[in-house]
C-alpha cells in the first residue's frame, strides 16, 4: 500500500507529543486473508478530501506545524457475509465504534448487526496518528465510506460477471445484489465465497450524501452495550494473563527529584518478588497487588529534590517567563489595534487566569505487557497506539515490527491518554520478570504523574464604537495554548498572539485544548463589553457576528432558553456564550442561583445548541454534548490542581472536586442537523462555551465579574 501524506496542524499545547514517525502498513495482503479468511477486501489510502477538511470554513487555527500521517482504513466482506472494518482509531467512551460501524453498514447496504469494527491494534489496523482533535468523524468516516462504496462496486461487478450482464443496471441493497430486470439476486456472502479479491480504493468513488443515509444518522445504541451493563467488558485493568504478575513503580517524592540511594535488599528477599532498578526507575512485580505493595514499601530510597514553583505563584511566573519573541505562526495581525483603540468610544482591558486541571479518567492509566520470543505485546488504554508502539520500540531497542499495542475499549481519556507511561513500566517489569506484568496506576499516581491541562494567563485589550461594534481586539495567551484563540466576531483591527512559556508541570492535551480557556476569556470579555455598551449580551453578540452557523446556534440556544428572561428570584442570573472550533459551532445559555449569604453558586439550568454538520448518531452525539457540558461545569466552577514543592497537594477525589450528581443542573442539548455540511467531530467543542455562560450568569446575578478559572472553588466570597 502506498500512503498519501495528509498535512494537519499540531497545536502548541500538545506538549506531550513527540514528533510522530512516518509509517507504512506492513501486513501483506496474503496475511490479511490468512487472518480473516477468503472474501472481498478493499484498502484505502488518504486522499485530498481529508486535507480539505482541515482547511474547511470554521477551522481557525493559524499555526502550521505539520505532523505527517497516513490515514487509511480497510474493510473485508467474508464468505459468511460478515463485514469487518479496520481502523487505527480507539474507542474511549466517545462511542465512535458504533458510529463507524453505522457508516460502514450504511454505505455497504448491509444490516448494522453484520458489521464488526477492529480498532486500535497495531498488528491488525492501519497506522493512525491517534484519536484526538475531533478528527475521527471528519476523516475516518468518509474514508470508511469510500472503502465500503468500493466494496459495494466490487460486489456488483462480481454479480454482473456471474449473470453476464452490465453492472450499471444492478442494485445493491440489504446485503445482496439484485438485477431488477430479471428479479434474481445474490447475497454478498454468495458473491464473496471462494474469492480472494483485494483492491485499492479507486481514485474517486462517490459516497452516499447524508440526505440519503438510512443507517447512519440514526440513534443506534452503543455496540456491545450489554457487555458494559453486565461487567463483562474487559478494560485493560481487567485483563488476566496466565502467570501474570502485578507491578508497581516507586515514585519520587516530588517532580524532578533524582535518586541518590536505594536499598532494595528486603524487597528482593521476598518470595516471588522481582525488583527492577534501571537509572531512576525502581519498580517491583509480585504475584498479587498487595505483595507488590509490601515489596515497594520495603524499599528504602533517598532523593535529591529541586525547588519548584507553587500553584499560588504560577500565574505571575507564566507572565514573567514568556518567550521574548513569539514565532510568526503564533501571531496574527490585521489593521491597527492602536488606531482601533484610539477611535473607540469605550475601551476595556482585562486579564484572565486559568488553572491547571486534571483529566481524572475513571479508568486510571494501565497496561499489561507480555514478552515472547523477543517480541513485546502490550494492552493499554491509549489514544495513540502507534505512537505508544514506537516509544516502546525505541525504549527497548526493538524494531517496530517486534512491538504490538492493543487498545481494549477504554474507560475514557479526554485527551489524557496519549503517552505510554504505564505501557513502558509494565514492559520493563515484564522483561525482568520473564512473565506478563500488569501495572494499574493508583488514583494518586493518576492525579500526580499523568499530565495536566496547562495553566494560562490571557490578556485582552478591546474597544467598541458608540453603536456597540467592535473597533479593536488584542488577545494574548500565555502558555495555555492557541486553540480557538481567534475571535469569530467581526473586527477590523486585530492582534492575537500565543506566547510560549517553559513547562511548570507536565502538561498536554485536554478535551478542547486551550479553546476552553480562550473561549472563557473572550466570551467573558464580550459580556463585559456588552455591559459597557449598555446592550443585551445576546444582542451585542449578534450585532458583531456575521457567520450564519454561529448565529444559528446562538439563536437556537437563546430561543430554547427563553432569552431574554426576567428575574423572578433574588440571586438569579442568566448568561450566554458561544464559540466555534474544529468545524463545529456551539452556544450555551446558563441560569445560576447565588446564595448571597453563603456565597454558594448553583447552576440551575444549561441550554446548549450544537452544530457539527450532518449528525452520524444523534444518540451518541447527545451523550457527548451533555457529557461535555457537565465536564465543562467542573472546570468552570471548582476543578484546579494545587501544587507546592513539586508535589500535587490535592491528588485525590476527596480534595480534587469533580462534578457529581448534586452539581448537575437541568440540561437541554439542541442538536442542529445540517445534512448539507460534512460531519465534523463533536468530542470537544461542546465544552467550550459552558464556563463563560456560567460566569456571565454569575455576573448577572451578583454584579461580580469572575475572570479566573475555576471561578468559585470555595463559593462566591464578597470582595
Amino acid at each position, binding site marked *: 500500500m502506498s500512503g498519501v501524506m495528509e498535512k494537519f496542524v499540531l497545536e502548541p499545547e500538545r506538549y506531550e507529543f513527540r514528533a510522530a514517525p512516518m509509517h507504512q502498513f506492513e501486513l501483506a495482503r496474503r496475511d490479511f486473508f490468512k487472518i480473516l479468511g477468503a472474501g472481498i477486501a478493499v484498502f484505502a489510502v488518504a486522499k485530498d478530501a481529508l486535507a480539505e477538511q482541515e482547511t474547511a470554513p470554521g477551522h481557525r487555527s493559524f499555526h502550521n506545524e505539520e505532523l505527517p500521517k497516513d490515514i487509511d482504513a480497510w474493510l473485508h466482506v467474508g464468505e459468511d457475509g460478515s463485514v469487518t472494518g479496520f481502523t487505527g482509531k480507539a474507542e474511549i467512551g466517545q462511542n465512535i465504534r458504533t458510529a463507524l460501524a453505522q457508516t460502514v453498514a450504511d454505505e455497504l447496504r448491509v444490516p448494522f448487526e453484520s458489521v464488526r469494527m477492529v480498532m486500535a491494534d497495531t498488528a491488525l489496523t492501519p497506522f493512525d496518528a491517534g484519536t484526538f482533535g475531533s478528527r475521527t468523524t471528519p476523516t475516518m468516516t468518509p474514508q470508511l465510506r469510500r472503502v465500503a462504496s468500493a466494496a459495494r462496486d466490487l460486489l456488483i461487478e462480481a454479480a454482473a460477471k456471474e449473470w453476464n450482464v452490465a453492472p450499471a443496471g444492478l442494485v445493491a441493497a440489504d446485503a445482496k445484489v439484485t438485477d431488477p430486470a430479471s428479479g434474481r439476486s445474490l447475497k454478498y456472502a454468495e458473491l464473496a465465497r471462494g474469492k480472494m479479491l483485494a483492491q485499492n480504493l479507486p481514485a474517486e468513488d462517490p459516497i452516499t450524501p447524508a440526505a440519503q443515509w438510512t443507517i447512519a444518522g440514526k440513534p443506534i445504541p452503543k455496540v456491545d452495550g450489554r457487555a458494559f*451493563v*453486565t461487567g463483562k467488558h474487559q478494560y485493560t485493568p481487567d485483563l488476566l494473563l496466565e502467570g501474570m504478575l502485578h507491578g508497581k513503580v516507586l515514585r519520587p517524592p516530588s517532580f524532578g527529584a533524582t535518586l541518590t540511594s536505594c536499598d532494595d535488599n528486603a524487597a528482593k528477599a521476598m518470595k516471588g518478588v522481582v525488583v527492577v532498578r534501571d537509572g531512576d526507575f525502581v519498580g517491583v512485580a509480585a504475584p498479587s497487588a498487595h505483595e507488590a505493595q509490601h515489596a515497594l514499601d520495603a524499599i528504602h530510597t533517598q532523593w535529591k529534590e529541586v525547588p519548584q514553583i507553587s500553584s499560588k505563584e504560577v500565574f505571575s511566573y507564566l507572565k514573567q517567563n514568556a518567550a521574548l519573541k513569539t514565532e510568526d505562526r503564533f501571531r496574527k495581525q490585521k489593521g491597527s489595534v492602536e488606531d482601533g483603540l484610539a477611535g473607540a468610544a469605550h475601551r476595556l482591558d482585562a486579564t484572565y487566569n486559568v488553572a491547571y486541571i486534571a483529566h481524572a*479518567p475513571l479508568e486510571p492509566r494501565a497496561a499489561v505487557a507480555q514478552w515472547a520470543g523477543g517480541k513485546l505485546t502490550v494492552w493499554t488504554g491509549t489514544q495513540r497506539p502507534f505512537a505508544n508502539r514506537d516509544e516502546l520500540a525505541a525504549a527497548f531497542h526493538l524494531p517496530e515490527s517486534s512491538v504490538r499495542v492493543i487498545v481494549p475499549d477504554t474507560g475514557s481519556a479526554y485527551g489524557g491518554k496519549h503517552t505510554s507511561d504505564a505501557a513502558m513500566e509494565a514492559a520493563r517489569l515484564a522483561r525482568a520478570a520473564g512473565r506478563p506484568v500488569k501495572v494499574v496506576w493508583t488514583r494518586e499516581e493518576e492525579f500526580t504523574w499523568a499530565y495536566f491541562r496547562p495553566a494560562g494567563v490571557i490578556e485582552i485589550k478591546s474597544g467598541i464604537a458608540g453603536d456597540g461594534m467592535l473597533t479593536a481586539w488584542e488577545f494574548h495567551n500565555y502558555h495555555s495554548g492557541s486553540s480557538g484563540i481567534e475571535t469569530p466576531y467581526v473586527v477590523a483591527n486585530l492582534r492575537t498572539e500565543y506566547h510560549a512559556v517553559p513547562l511548570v508541570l507536565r502538561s498536554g492535551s485536554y478535551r478542547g485544548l486551550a479553546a476552553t480557556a480562550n473561549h472563557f476569556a473572550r466570551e467573558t470579555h464580550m459580556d463585559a463589553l456588552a455591559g459597557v455598551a449598555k446592550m443585551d449580551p445576546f444582542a451585542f453578540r449578534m450585532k458583531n457576528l456575521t457567520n450564519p452557523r454561529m448565529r444559528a446556534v446562538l439563536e437556537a440556544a437563546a430561543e430554547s432558553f427563553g432569552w431574554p428572561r426576567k428575574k423572578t428570584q433574588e440571586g438569579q442570573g442568566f448568561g450566554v456564550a458561544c464559540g466555534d472550533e474544529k468545524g463545529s459551532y456551539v452556544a450555551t445559555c446558563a441560569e445560576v442561583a447565588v446564595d448571597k449569604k453563603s456565597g454558594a453558586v448553583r447552576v440551575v439550568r444549561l441550554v446548549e445548541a450544537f452544530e457539527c454538520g450532518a449528525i452520524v448518531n444523534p444518540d451518541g452525539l447527545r451523550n457527548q454534548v451533555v457529557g461535555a457540558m457537565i465536564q465543562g461545569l467542573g472546570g468552570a466552577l471548582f476543578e484546579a490542581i494545587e501544587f507546592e514543592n513539586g508535589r500535587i497537594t490535592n491528588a485525590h477525589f476527596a480534595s480534587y472536586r469533580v462534578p457529581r450528581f448534586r452539581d448537575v443542573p437541568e440540561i437541554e442539548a439542541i442538536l442542529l442537523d445540517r445534512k448539507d455540511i460534512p460531519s465534523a467531530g463533536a468530542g470537544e467543542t461542546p465544552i467550550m462555551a459552558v464556563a463563560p455562560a456560567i460566569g456571565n450568569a454569575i455576573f448577572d446575578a451578583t454584579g461580580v465579574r469572575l475572570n479566573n478559572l475555576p471561578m468559585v472553588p470555595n463559593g462566591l466570597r464578597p470582595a
Partner: protein
Amino acid sequence: MPIEIEVNGKRYPVSYPPDTPLLYVLRDELQLNGTKYGCGEGQCGACTVLIAGAPRRSCQIPVSAATGKPVTTIEGLEKEGRLHPVQQAFLDAGAFQCAYCTSGMIMSSVGLLQMNANPSQADVVQFLQGNVCRCGTHPRIIEAIRSAAKTMQERGR
C-alpha cells in the same frame, strides 16, 4: 483457618490476607473483574458491591469483614440470561459513555431501589453523590434508575 466468602451465591476460599480489601480479592483472586478500581479511597463508587443487600465500597471493606454475609457483584445480577431491571434500564437509556463507572452505578442503584422502591429525583441524586461519572452521563443515569423503579414496581418485584 482460611477465610471463606460467599459471592453471587457461590462460596470461595480466600488465600489473600484478611486485611486485603474485598475489591482485590474479587478482582485478582476470584477473577470477578466486573467490579472496578477507580480510586481505592472510597471516593468514586466504581467498586460498589452489595454486602447483605446494602451497597458498599469494596475497596474500603477488608475481606474478613465480608465473611458470613452474601456479597453480590455486577456478575451476579443477570439471572438465566435475563438482565436485572436496573441493567436493562441502563442499556435502554444508553446511560453510559466509557461505562467504566457503570458497574458501580448499577450496584448502587440496585441497593437504592431495595431500600426505596420509588425514589424521587432528589433521592437518586442524594444516594449517588458518592459515585463519579467522569463522562457526564448523570441525567441518563437518573432517568434509567427511575425507569427501573417503575418496571420493578409493575412487576411487583
